[in-house]
């Protein structure tokens, strides 16, 4: 009895040793900074003078409708537009390619690599590449459009087309969701399709009545991670447009970055960060709350299957 307890104690102590990198990292790089961030959000911290407590002033300024005081509503609109137009398109395209690839075709490996390749790469190089593709006069996109008789817009230099341009660029990375959907599709039992066929279901009906419900947990996962990722968009707007023209692509994180690291308005930037966090939490809670209505889990019926 006594010996057994010491074995458990050893195991527990060893566990904390193994966990220690993350425990320290969590405290030093997540928990303490978050508390500090909350504290600074009530101050005028600016790296030069010692922070003074200014109450809710940062938050009052943040929600101001005056463009010279706060770009909150503007950046929230831009980021939401980019996310809620871009992510569904991205998912639809990814799903479409995945369904095509799942048709027992030849050359699956080659096609999969080609479609997945763009989502492996990211960062400044890709942003520069697309800035050049979107070039109003010498870019390849307007050249291709001119071949079918369309005179393309100025894209990144046009207030109305800059956000759609970023969305198009983001679609090039649809291979990421495609890959996850493809794995999900391969997990759907073929008997379900055979049963549907016996009942005389059309291809279309099979897609909506079998594929979509069976894939809904995967769609749910991709949706949540893509939306969270999309809200963090920074590099493309920083490199390609610097938030312009006329703030049309000024995204939330880019604004936060500018406030903190160009104007050194740290206190205000911290209030932005906290509001951003609350928006994400509220949004995630909403999606999870709504999920029983449209996400179909096998375990709901089979029962007991725990992943």
């Amino acid at each position, binding site marked *: 009895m006594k010996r057994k307890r010491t074995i458990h104690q050893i195991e527990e102590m060893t566990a904390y040793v*193994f966990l220690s*990198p993350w425990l320290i990292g969590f405290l*030093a790089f997540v928990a303490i900074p978050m508390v500090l961030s909350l504290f600074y959000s009530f101050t005028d911290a600016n790296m030069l003078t010692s922070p003074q407590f200014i109450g809710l002033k940062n938050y009052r300024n943040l929600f101001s409708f005056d463009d010279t005081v706060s770009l909150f509503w503007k950046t929230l609109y831009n980021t939401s537009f980019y996310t809620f137009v871009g992510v569904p398109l991205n998912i639809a395209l990814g799903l479409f390619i995945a369904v095509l690839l799942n048709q027992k075709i030849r050359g699956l490996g080659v096609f999969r690599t080609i479609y997945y390749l763009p989502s*492996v790469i990211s960062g400044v190089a890709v942003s520069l590449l*697309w800035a050049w593709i979107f070039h109003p006069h*010498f870019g390849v996109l307007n*050249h291709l459009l001119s071949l079918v008789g369309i005179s393309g817009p100025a894209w990144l230099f046009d207030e109305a087309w800059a956000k759609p341009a970023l969305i198009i660029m983001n679609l090039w990375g649809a291979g990421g969701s495609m890959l996850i959907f493809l794995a999900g599709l391969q997990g759907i039992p073929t008997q379900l399709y055979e049963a549907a066929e016996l009942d005389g279901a059309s291809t279309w009906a099979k897609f909506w009545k079998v594929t979509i419900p069976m894939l809904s947990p995967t769609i749910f996962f991709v949706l949540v991670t893509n939306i969270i990722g999309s809200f963090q968009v920074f590099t493309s707007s920083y490199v390609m447009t610097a938030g312009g023209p006329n703030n049309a692509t000024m995204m939330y994180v880019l604004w*936060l970055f500018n406030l903190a690291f160009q104007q050194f308005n740290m206190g205000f930037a911290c209030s932005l960060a906290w509001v951003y966090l609350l928006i994400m939490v509220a949004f995630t809670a909403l999606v999870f709350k709504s999920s029983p209505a449209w996400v179909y889990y096998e375990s709901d019926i089979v029962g007991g299957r725990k992943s």
Partner: protein
Amino acid sequence: MQRKRVLLHSKKRRAILGKIIVYFLLVVGAIVFLVPFIWMLSTSVKPPEEVYIFPPKWIPSRFVWENYVKIFELMPTGRFLLNSLVISCLTMAGSVISCSLVGFAFARLRFRGSGILFFILLITMMLPHQVTMVPLYMIFSKLGWVGTYFPLIVPAFFGNPYFIFLLRQFFTTIPKELDEAAKVDGCSIPGIFARIIVPMSKPALGIVAILSFTDAWNDFMGPLIYLSEFTKFPISLGLRAFQTLRVVQWELLMATSAIALIPVLVLFFLAQKNYIQGIVISGVKG
């Protein structure tokens, strides 16, 4: 009989037609996905006078391979690449070491508070790092780390929630009987980790290595915040400097971009199977 055969015939024809449509869509889509790459490579070997013409030429009248030499002369591109390599390799080492240790504890060991700690891990996976960006900068600046690689590398040695989760998922698929057998033979817990779990998890550790390397290589915001000295720039900042310092020369920018993408693409092709598996482990089973 006759009718049935006609029916079968039309069904078969429909199936063939369907296949043709599928292949047609896939080929057209593949071309569309490849066009940006081709455009980049085509621009990168053009003489300057053929870059700014409309309609553009896909194949330049002469191939200017010197563009790829010029980018190393006009800018310290070699230095930038080396800096990126140093940052990415150290980040990779830190992530693999720390995340495998933590993942092992979560997958195999019993300890008080394991439930709540795992919950915290899942929450931090969702947490956007922008929330802690500003106070972290203030802390690192107090430590005198601004302008060094420490803020980019050190956090990797303290675990990344996403990679910890990925490894934990993988470790739990290794049969527990192996641990029990080793325990009977007198193997300690660190021994089980080093002799059983690590050797059996090479694919998963490979995924973490590749993903952490790629993330560090592509990172732009971190270096942008912490580095200001030109000679310390990684390639992401170097590219940005190239874009803003001089009159934009697209053929040279595209050549540098192509060079910057090579390491990630090479890694992808070398470990394609691992890569895809990693996405699937973390994606579907999540």
